[in-house]
């Protein structure tokens, strides 16, 4: 071979080597999830779902192997800034995935926005994350708190219900779900009589259950999740209220909790972007694989974790594994139609999923789909300036 060609070839190889090295270097993913406390089961489900998608892609996303760094956020917004700073500044992760608790996610979004680190939120629905705190490097694979509340408000108003009492924990997630519910419900001609709440994660519902009985509304809209949801539904039934006042809520009231709630949950209607028994080929394949790998039935949290990995994969595929190409990453996700077990969804301009919300009813320890409460519901992204 002539020396010129060898030189050119050598330069090409040397020039490409760093790029190849970069593409082969492991991608550091920081998982900041609750591994203890009232949301521990949710954190584990999200991680399981995320890892399942990566495994299905042969252990690589965008041609790069994944290196996980885990931090337990304990669902504590007070420690959140410190925890996420550890991931971003000390461990130098490329992508952060988290969290479950809205307050924690808010702290994460601030640090992500200031530092430019890619953030994918696999659950926390804080409206601010795809609202005033939105950024080109922040994405969500789950929902905004406004969405499921709004969907239930629509569904209930359509049924002709006029008078409702709401009850939830007093924190960002609870307030925003009730706000979404109220918006749709009042638009449909209903009225929210009382808005009851108690501090998170308090589970002493007795005094408030008494208030509900006294107010005698046509229905009760509740948001609780994890262990709190288990206790509320059981206490509601123990107080005899389930016989006369129907209980409705966002899906978190009955997702992942039906085993513990038992008969107390029968008949409870909820709205969520996922349900049991959707019976689509995509969902069936997902559920089978998840049950085989983890010996557990998947829930909405597992799907959200799975889709977070899927979104990361789509972005990385478009940039050939280069996480620093943020504009291309974002552009790819904005045009993408994500093939999720919940059904295909797209992302709104503020990077929140635009998706169908199913109306489900509990029967035989399952959340069965009885209809679609809201089709292709998009969060308005109020306050987002992108």
């Amino acid at each position: 071979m002539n020396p010129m060609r060898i030189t050119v070839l050598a330069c090409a190889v040397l020039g490409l080597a760093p790029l190849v090295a970069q593409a082969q270097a492991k991608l550091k993913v920081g998982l900041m999830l609750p591994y203890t406390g009232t949301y521990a089961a949710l954190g584990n489900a999200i991680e399981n779902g995320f890892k399942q998608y990566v495994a299905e892609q042969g252990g690589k996303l965008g041609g790069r192997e994944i290196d996980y760094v885990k931090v337990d956020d304990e669902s504590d917004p007070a420690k959140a800034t410190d925890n996420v700073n550890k991931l971003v500044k000390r461990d130098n992760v490329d992508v952060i995935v988290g969290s479950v608790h809205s307050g924690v996610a808010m702290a994460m979004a601030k640090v992500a926005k200031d530092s430019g680190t890619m953030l994918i939120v696999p659950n926390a629905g804080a409206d601010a994350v795809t609202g005033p705190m939105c950024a080109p490097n922040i994405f969500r694979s789950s929902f905004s708190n406004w969405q499921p509340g709004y969907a239930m408000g629509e569904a209930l108003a359509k049924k002709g219900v006029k008078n409702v009492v709401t009850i939830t924990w007093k924190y960002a997630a609870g307030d925003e779900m009730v706000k979404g519910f109220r918006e749709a419900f009042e638009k449909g001609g209903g009225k929210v009589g009382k808005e009851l709440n108690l501090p998170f994660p308090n589970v002493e519902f007795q005094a408030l259950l008494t208030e509900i009985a006294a107010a005698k509304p046509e229905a009760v809209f509740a948001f609780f999740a994890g262990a709190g949801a288990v206790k509320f539904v059981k206490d509601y039934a123990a107080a005899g209220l389930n016989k006369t006042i129907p209980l409705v809520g966002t899906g978190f009231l009955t997702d992942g909790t039906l085993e513990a709630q038992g008969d107390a949950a029968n008949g409870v209607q909820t709205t969520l972007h996922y349900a049991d028994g959707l019976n689509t080929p995509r969902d069936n394949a997902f559920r089978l694989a998840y049950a085989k790998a983890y010996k557990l039935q998947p829930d909405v949290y597992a799907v959200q974790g799975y889709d977070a990995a899927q979104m990361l994969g789509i972005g990385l595929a478009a940039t050939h594994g280069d996480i620093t190409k943020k504009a291309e990453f974002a552009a790819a996700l904005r045009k993408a139609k994500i093939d999720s077990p919940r059904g295909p969804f797209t992302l709104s301009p503020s990077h929140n999923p635009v998706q169908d919300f199913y109306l489900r009813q509990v029967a035989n320890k399952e959340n069965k789909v009885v209809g679609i409460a809201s089709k292709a519901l998009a969060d308005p992204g109020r306050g987002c300036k992108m």
Partner: protein
Amino acid sequence: MLKPPLAFVAAAFALLGAYPLLGGAYGMDLAAKMMIYAIFALSLELLVGGTGLVCFGQAAFFGAGAYAAVRLSPSDAPAALLWLLPASVAAGALLALAVGALSLRTRGVYFIMVTLAFAQMAYYVVHDTALGGGSDGIYLNFKPALGSALDLDRPLPMYAFILGCLAFSFVLLALLRRSRFGRALAGIKANEARMRASGFSTYPYKLAAFTLSGAIAALAGFLFAVKDGFVNPELLSWHFSGAVLVMIILGGLGHLRGALIGAFAFTLLQEFFKSEAVFGAFAKHWMLGLGLSIIGCVALLPRGLVGMPAWWRERREQRESRGATGAMP
């Protein structure tokens, strides 16, 4: 030649000043946090070590400064530093004035409990009402600006600013101790009844100390809010009030440098017990190590870390004197 305590403090500040050249991004962040805690500890040292008032609600004033900084900033533009800083400090001072005016009518264990009660009230106001924005906390969207002279969005100017505030607080309190006011406070700590018998009306002095202490705590809170851009009600929790008490005991009561040492030692101790490099999977139980350390420190080091050189010297002298007089029978 400088006296050892002064040399120590000068060396500490020099080290802090040089640290940005040595530490990485995370290290600077940690050091900045420790300096903020040091200012907070100094404020409590004025009360506990300087005046003998054990306040179990200091976090309320810290939180007042932090929340004032966020609440008084406009949501779409940076506030002026020259205005925001004094306003936040004033918020803490006013709260301290109000709480002090009522609490100082009690003594001893009741004083401890009343300050705790007022701090809890502040906590619940911030946690439950619209004033505080709820249990998740609120954002500071734009850090305050001093024209173009100081860009607090970058870590190095932020670090320098915090160091400056720490130096200012330290010097202020050091001068205060040597002043007539400071000596009156020391007298109140030693024996309040005797002070009153000599004609001093102790209440105004105690109230002034309490208010100043609240102001300095609010300064620390202000810096915290500006550094992280995010505040939440746990900044006012009694856990935080307890932690800062531990800091000054750990460092050593009665000495300003004790507050500095205590804040740094406490934070480093926490980081040590949390580090997975040392403890592996057990690191998630870091509070066990911290709890045992606190118990050990209070039980075995009554004078704190500051007293260690003296304690060491005493032990050595004891050993030498025993040797000089021959073996004991």
